[in-house]
């Protein structure tokens, strides 16, 4: 049917269209075409609106877009070598990266080294640094050879190898070739634990130097965990704020905002005081006995786990790094206490133990006393040390929980600091959900839970989405808090970007890592848009 329609209709249709006169344009009262007049009228207001936003636009462009662009480019472009060593750059451009280095390459290198040393900016250090990033140890090779280069004579190959035998090593030349490429994927490859070679391949970095992928994954894991924690903690708070009478909810709002107005540094430091081994929380736990209760429960749990499902328990213990030694049971608190006293006070403690009734003595005390009576203080203290080592309880601070200088610390502090970013969007969305929806749901027969889950919760999802996106993106680039409380397993990728910015001065690598991070953020933004829809996001 469609075919016949086209066949019969199309030519006629075109003919009709061609014949049809174009309608005369509508004219405004003064005779100009209406369309043009409208454009003129709108132009003025448009320009006025643009003038209002122009300063911000300009500011964003200069302070945000251009630097980000420039920085991302820096991850691809590094001409530190090519700029100052043009001859060898040219000579190496045609080299295949595998065959024996030629005399021309050596000659060009010597000429470049001489020129670089005479250059007023003294770029030899920068050149050496660049090559050193590709092959460790070449820095001094360059600086020392440069000092001798002026006195070298042809044949340059022999002269250079005589100056340092590393010049005979093809690895050196391969590193130079990689460094001499100005537009290079080397840094982006390095930021993902790959290595760009002289032959143009990209291969995995050797195992003991792979670090970035682990860090990116950990960063994502921490950001995700923090997001989930802020939802779990923030949702009830936001709900209370949205549903309590105004006075109470205002008070809550202030409580939520108050930490928000305090410097991140102060808040993080406060967490250090709270969580550290000798900190407030541990002191309270220690004083109230919660500490030993938890340790006791931990041990019983481990015992039970081991009894019922030995293999499963082992797996759990390994995975979660549950540091539970059974022998600790043998040396439960009392015993440990005696040992510690002897270790710290020596004879005094032993004399104290000697005055106790035999029935009141712990096993450890009995053992130590026996040795004290037989062989004196020194031997008894040695025994105490032995007991302590045998028992596997690492003595000092071990009965206290490690809540800081590790991932736990990072999670706790970041969750606290980012909580307002979850509570505020949630609150502003929940504020708009009328209580009559819940009442309607209940009147229609829904239990409290069903009414919440099917009616209230879906309507609060835009708030969760906005809060989650906000918290996640902030968390993924978090830096100060993990730097202060992260210890060794609570560090995030930003800390390494910082390290390369401030310490190793490897700015291109920092730029590449930042670029990868930015791509991550954009990816998650896109994912969010696909799943939730960005126009579903409500900040208020």
């Amino acid at each position, binding site marked *: 049917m469609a075919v016949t329609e086209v066949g019969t209709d199309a030519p006629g249709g075109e003919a009709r269209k061609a014949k049809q006169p174009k309608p005369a344009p509508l004219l405004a009262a003064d005779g100009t075409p209406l369309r043009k007049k409208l454009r003129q009228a709108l132009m003025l207001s448009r320009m006025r609106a643009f003038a209002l936003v122009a300063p911000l636009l300009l500011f964003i462009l200069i302070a945000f877009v251009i630097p980000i662009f420039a920085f991302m480019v820096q991850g691809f472009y590094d001409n530190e070598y090519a700029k100052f060593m043009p001859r060898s750059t040219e000579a190496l451009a045609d080299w295949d990266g595998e065959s024996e280095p030629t005399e021309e390459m050596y000659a060009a290198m010597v000429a470049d080294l001489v020129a670089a040393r005479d250059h007023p900016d003294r770029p030899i250090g920068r050149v050496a640094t660049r090559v050193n990033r590709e092959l460790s140890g070449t820095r001094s090779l360059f600086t020392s050879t440069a000092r001798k280069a002026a006195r070298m004579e042809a044949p340059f190959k022999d002269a250079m190898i005589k100056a340092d035998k590393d010049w005979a090593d093809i690895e050196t030349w391969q590193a130079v070739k990689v460094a001499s490429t100005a537009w290079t994927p080397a840094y982006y490859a390095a930021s993902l634990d790959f290595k760009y070679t002289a032959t143009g391949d990209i291969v995995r970095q050797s195992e003991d130097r792979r670090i970035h992928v682990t860090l990116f994954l950990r960063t994502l894991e921490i950001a995700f965990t923090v997001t989930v924690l802020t939802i779990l903690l923030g949702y009830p708070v936001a709900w209370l704020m949205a549903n309590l009478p105004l006075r109470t909810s205002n008070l809550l709002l202030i409580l939520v905002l108050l930490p928000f107005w305090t410097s991140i540094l102060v808040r993080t430091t406060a967490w250090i005081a709270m969580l550290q081994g000798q900190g407030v929380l541990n002191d309270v736990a220690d004083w109230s006995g919660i500490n030993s209760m938890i340790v006791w429960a931990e041990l019983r749990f481990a015992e039970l786990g081991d009894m019922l499902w030995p293999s499963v328990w082992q797996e759990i213990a390994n995975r979660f790094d549950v540091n539970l030694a059974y022998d600790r049971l043998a040396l439960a608190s009392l015993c440990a206490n005696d040992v510690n006293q002897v270790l710290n006070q020596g004879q005094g403690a032993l004399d104290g133990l000697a005055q106790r009734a035999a029935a009141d003595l712990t096993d450890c005390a009995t053992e130590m006393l026996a040795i004290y009576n037989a062989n004196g203080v020194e031997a008894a203290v040695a025994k105490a040390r032995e007991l302590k080592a045998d028992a596997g309880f690492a003595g000092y601070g071990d009965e206290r929980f490690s809540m800081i200088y590790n991932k736990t610390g990072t999670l706790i502090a970041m969750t606290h600091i980012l909580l307002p970013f979850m509570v505020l969007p949630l609150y502003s969305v929940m504020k708009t959900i*009328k209580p*009559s929806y819940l009442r*309607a*749901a209940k*009147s*229609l027969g*829904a*239990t*409290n839970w069903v009414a919440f889950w099917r*009616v209230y919760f879906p309507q609060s999802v835009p708030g969760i989405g906005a809060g989650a996106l906000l918290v996640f993106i902030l968390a993924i680039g978090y830096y100060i808090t993990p730097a202060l409380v992260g210890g060794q397993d609570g560090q995030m990728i930003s800390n390494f970007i910082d390290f390369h910015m401030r310490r190793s001065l490897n700015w291109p690598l920092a730029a590449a890592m930042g670029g990868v991070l930015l791509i991550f953020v954009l990816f998650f933004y896109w994912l969010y848009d696909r799943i939730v829809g960005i126009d579903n996001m409500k900040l208020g």
Partner: protein
Amino acid sequence: MQASDGNPFVAFERVQKSYDGETLVVKDLNLSIGKGEFLTMLGPSGSGKTTCLMMLAGFETATHGEIRLAGKPINSVPPHKRGIGMVFQNYALFPHMTVAENLAFPLQVRKMPKADIEAKVAKALGMVQMGAFGGRRPAQLSGGQQQRIALARALVFDPELVLMDEPLGALDKQLREHMQYEIKHIHESLGVTVVYVTHDQSEALTMSDRIAVFNDGVIQQLAPPADLYERPENAFVAQFIGENNKLSGKVEEITDGVAEVVLDDGERVSALAVNVEGPGSRTLLSVRPERVVINPDEARIAHTLDGHVRELIYLGDHIRCRMAVAGNDEFIVKVPNAAGQKHLAVDSHVRVGWETEDCRALDAA
């Protein structure tokens, strides 16, 4: 459809409600509602009518007293187990669900089979003539359409009792009047019991079998619409329902239910003694504007008073005349725009009078 006192469907017994423990919002409420009845709770805002409705729905608990539904006390039954349909002032349609999903919701929580749900939803949508709108979101509907959906949702699970909390308050006048008839018709065809809350007296008069007029936490009068208008039992009801002229005075004597009243300016009139204590007590006379006769036949009407015409408003079917009568400057008379009716002039003096049974002597509140 009067409540059968022996076994009312809904009963409030000595119900009291206080929010702050100091003042009572509902004072000693007794009310029986029969099965299938359309009862309206009418009153100004703050009169306690909505609180009563919320106690019935289960969203507020009574401070004292008992509420029974079909003979069983429901004070401690949670709202979702009461099986009462409810229509809210702002519809409360779930914005994240389609119309059909909104209607299916009460059926789903009752774990009804899917096929039955679809059938019932379709039927309910047909009932409110919204069959084509099942796939839309509430935000895509007009106010009137949303109202119909809210109504359908409250009815779709076949509740025996439906509560409506000022459901038409957000609609414009024309739509509101249209919806009043529609609700009325649905009520008649389903035979469901309806408790309806409004502050709009014309709405109440149009739809209800009986109206409970609330003021100050107390039911002032519970009666069918006609009774309420024709025979208000106290000054509040007379004033609240329809237009009313009041004249204050003092009862001189009561004979056979007719009181002789001396008005404050000395004129004497007679009125039905509805709510007066006896000779010597103060009273407020209530006369409806349309019952006042201008220049009446003196032989039929015992007492006539002087009326000084202050203002005339032409309203097509009648003329509204404001005059000063017995010291009341706001005395309104509706003069029918009938053939042969004499035209009045501003500032002229006329005689006004009324039948004794049209004038009710009420409490002086």
